């Protein structure tokens, strides 16, 4: 039961969404965009969120599209994870989404909500960071296309009132060799202790991490430079570049997370054939 009251709007166009946001906030009230609603409802129930209005974006056609166009895969921000898995246009993204929550939750959780929500894991962003994806953002000044790291870098960076419309993935990366591994504390379905996703691009391996730090991030390595005779030192080099402290919480201590990460990196090097 959500104990506080709010208004509900379901615009049919991007313009309506932006205008209604502007109108509500112009009355000194707080509005939030509402996609799958899973995070908004569960956090509101325990009074961890408060707002005066929700703007449900699921009826906006541009937020609902999933299509390949020319050399791009375009996924609307309100497309749910189940649809992404079933569409199958980007195998790594499908593999990552298939391990987020469970099937019925994936019918509701949207790609945009996973990236822009408060829950720190945001596993679905990993394949997007690894492929230098772009996003379309709409605001009062109209629509613009930006690199994904302009809307997420350690934290969501959208300005108040800006709406994430879609994500644009360059198809040149889609069939590259990739790997994905999610380790949880105990149950198969849980938040990650550590999730690693990677893409090989020529001599470079791009590695995305979720769960290791309080935000997901990407590190690149030049595969040819790896010293096969000394895997420990290569892994130390990678761990030295981790951009924030390793998380130490009820799912796992920092030491255990580092141990799991080391093993995942050995698996990753073995998978790409670089380590004996």
């Amino acid at each position, binding site marked *: *039961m*959500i104990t506080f*009251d709010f*208004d*509900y*709007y379901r615009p049919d166009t991007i313009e309506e969404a932006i205008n209604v946001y502007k109108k509500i906030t112009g009355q000194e009230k707080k509005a939030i965009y509402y996609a799958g609603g899973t995070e908004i409802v569960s956090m509101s129930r325990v009074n961890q969120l408060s707002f005066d209005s929700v703007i449900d974006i699921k009826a906006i056609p541009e937020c609902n599209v999933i299509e390949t166009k020319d050399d791009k895969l375009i996924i609307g921000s309100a497309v749910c994870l189940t649809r992404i898995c079933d569409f199958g246009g980007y195998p790594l993204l499908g593999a990552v989404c298939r391990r987020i929550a469970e*099937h019925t*939750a994936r019918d*509701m959780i949207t790609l945009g909500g996973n990236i822009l929500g408060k829950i720190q894991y945001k596993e679905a962003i990993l394949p997007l960071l690894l492929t230098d994806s772009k996003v379309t953002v709409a605001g009062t000044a109209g629509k613009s296309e930006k690199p994904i790291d302009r809307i997420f870098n350690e934290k969501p960076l959208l300005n108040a009132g800006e709406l994430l419309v879609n994500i644009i993935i360059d198809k040149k990366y889609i069939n590259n060799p990739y790997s994905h591994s999610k380790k949880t504390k105990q149950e198969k379905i849980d938040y990650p202790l550590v999730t690693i996703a990677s893409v090989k691009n020529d001599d470079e391996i791009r590695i995305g991490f979720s769960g290791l730090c309080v935000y997901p991030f990407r590190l690149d390595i030049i595969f040819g430079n790896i010293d096969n005779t000394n895997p420990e030192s290569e892994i130390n080099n990678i761990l030295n570049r981790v951009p924030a402290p390793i998380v130490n919480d009820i799912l796992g201590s920092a030491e255990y997370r580092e141990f799991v990460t080391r093993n995942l990196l050995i698996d990753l090097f073995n998978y790409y054939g670089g380590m004996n």
Partner: protein
Amino acid sequence: MIEFHDKSIIELYVNGDLKTVAARPADTLLFILRESLGLTGTKNSCGNGDCNSCTVLLDGWPVKSCLMLAVEAVGHEITTIEGLQDVPMQKAFVEKSAIQCGYCTPGMIINSHALTTIYPDASDEIIEEWLESNICRCTGYKEICEAVKSVINM
């Protein structure tokens, strides 16, 4: 643009009938189904998206009614366990003894019914993927899987 303010009258299309009900925009679909429409077959358990006992179908797809606003369902077709009239899955759960206390059963059946409707030839992998959503604290999942498979093999 659809909009709702304060407590207002909304129309929900439930089990083939148009129902008129008073709801706050903050009311979950689960709350309105159970407390206003008396459709208590849909169970409340965790209220937090973790167990799937509250599963209903929205346009044929399973959703957690505890994580959905009732106003969000306006304009969509909702199917609750009461809307399944003698579908093969109900019979299969009885025949395979896939029930003990029965608390998870409406959510299990509605999810399994959607699964076999959407994927009439579902593989073991797909069955496992879908059933992972529903938590049952009494039975093993063996009988439940057998019930689902018996409908697929019909």
